[in-house]
């Protein structure tokens, strides 16, 4: 599917996750955050960068990983990205959400 954010056409899946990370920009991340009622702060961006780094080096994302990230603790993570922090933060970061096999 094609979605237009700030006049830029991006490829997303049915749930609104970017399917091509090369199309991601900070502005697009900011808009997706707004759609999820999140106003981005420096702390939010630190978490987003950390998530993108993990995905680049093919490390699976998990709550355990967040705990050991040194960027944020789990309670803060939930507070910054309410309603399922991993699924919301990955959407803003332009990467796939953690999945199972089905």
């Amino acid at each position, binding site marked *: 599917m094609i979605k237009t954010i700030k006049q830029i056409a991006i490829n997303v899946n049915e749930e609104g996750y970017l399917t091509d990370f090369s199309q991601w920009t900070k502005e697009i991340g900011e808009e997706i955050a707004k759609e999820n009622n999140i106003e981005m702060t420096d702390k939010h961006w630190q978490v987003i960068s950390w998530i993108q780094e993990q995905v680049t080096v093919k490390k*699976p994302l998990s709550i*355990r*990983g967040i705990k050991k990230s040194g960027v944020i603790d789990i*309670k803060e993570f939930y507070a910054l990205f309410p309603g399922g*922090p*991993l699924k919301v933060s990955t959407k803003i970061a332009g990467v796939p959400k*953690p999945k199972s096999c*089905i």
Partner: protein
Amino acid sequence: MYKSLIMKNLVILGAGTSGTMMANHLVSKLPKKDWKIHIVDQYKTHYYQPGFLFLPFDIYNENQVRKEGKKFIPKGVEYHQLKIEKIDAENNLVELENGVLSYDILIIATGSKIAPQEVEGMHSKAWRDTIFDFYTYEGALALRNKLREFKEGKLVVHITEMPIKCPVAPLEFAFLADSYFDKKGIRDKVEITYVTPLSGAFTKEYSSKKLGYLLEEKNIKLETDFAIERVDYENKKIVDYIDKEISYDLLVTVPTNMGDEVIEKSGLGDDLNFVPTHEKTLQSLEHENIFVIGDATNVPASKAGSVAHFQSETLTDNILLYINNKPLKEEFDGHSNCFIETGKNKALLIDFNYEQEPVTGTFPIAGIGPLKLLKESVLNHWGKLAFRWVYWNLLLKGIPIPFVSRNMSTAGKNINK
């Protein structure tokens, strides 16, 4: 020291599904005059782990899921029933409880196991009283005894964190529990809740679309994005990091899964003691004469017997290439093939790899089947039950399964959604 001066040693650590298959593959392929194969495992019994799902519901009994491990190790392979203390990768040595084994090639097949101690209050006084696992033989049997007496209340089926062995097993457990209580005539007295740290019971687009109806049809409640912080075993509640609470009378959890502690002791693992492994060649990323297979790896494939089976074919070829100083094949594609019980004598079948998510279609013969992909059928259920025979008689012995290739086939799959 078992080392001989002329012979080279290939050592397999672990005689579970992966290790046993590798022993059977390699015994006929490695030149006997140059190579001696050893396999090490401290346990006497080989368990058919997919059967642990059926033990709690009295569908299988003890004897259907266990056999003596030695029976499946071929002649010509030296079996050491000993505890592995440490792998000394710098010196190509494995320290055993009563000696040292040197290797030229090492295959790590030490699997993964549950670590309930990772969550506060889980491995507590209430363990196997109101809190159970079904990923161990002992746990599945204890749960069977508990379920036989269970008359009413809240059953919570719970996943602690990913990755876990056989990621669909907890969902299958919830479906089978629905059938079990229905058959006993007490389904209306049991509330079943499925709790996952992921965003849904189904997380892939096509599966959610095709299978989303299942939970509702079976009246199973769903709690998503639940990252457990602790079990309040005194008040029978699981609590997450934002202090959300879910009460239970019976908690069936899949605890954190971790690689063997010998991996940690040897400094060869990641945070969860899984060994960093090349996802296509199955060579260790750190040591070129170490190869890793099955649940012990960190590759992003499912931790499942079928994956180990497909990996074993690629790994056998790569071991031979390595011995002959030839480049390894980047062949393993993450192929996985799993039956998923949905209760009431039906099952699903999924066939997928690193790139291709499960879709509908026919399997193993394109256009014919007889099995149907991502769709409930009675035949799929019989397929799952027949698989126990296949496991003991073909799979462990390294005999290829008819029509099923190591790499995933796109034929017969409805890929254009």
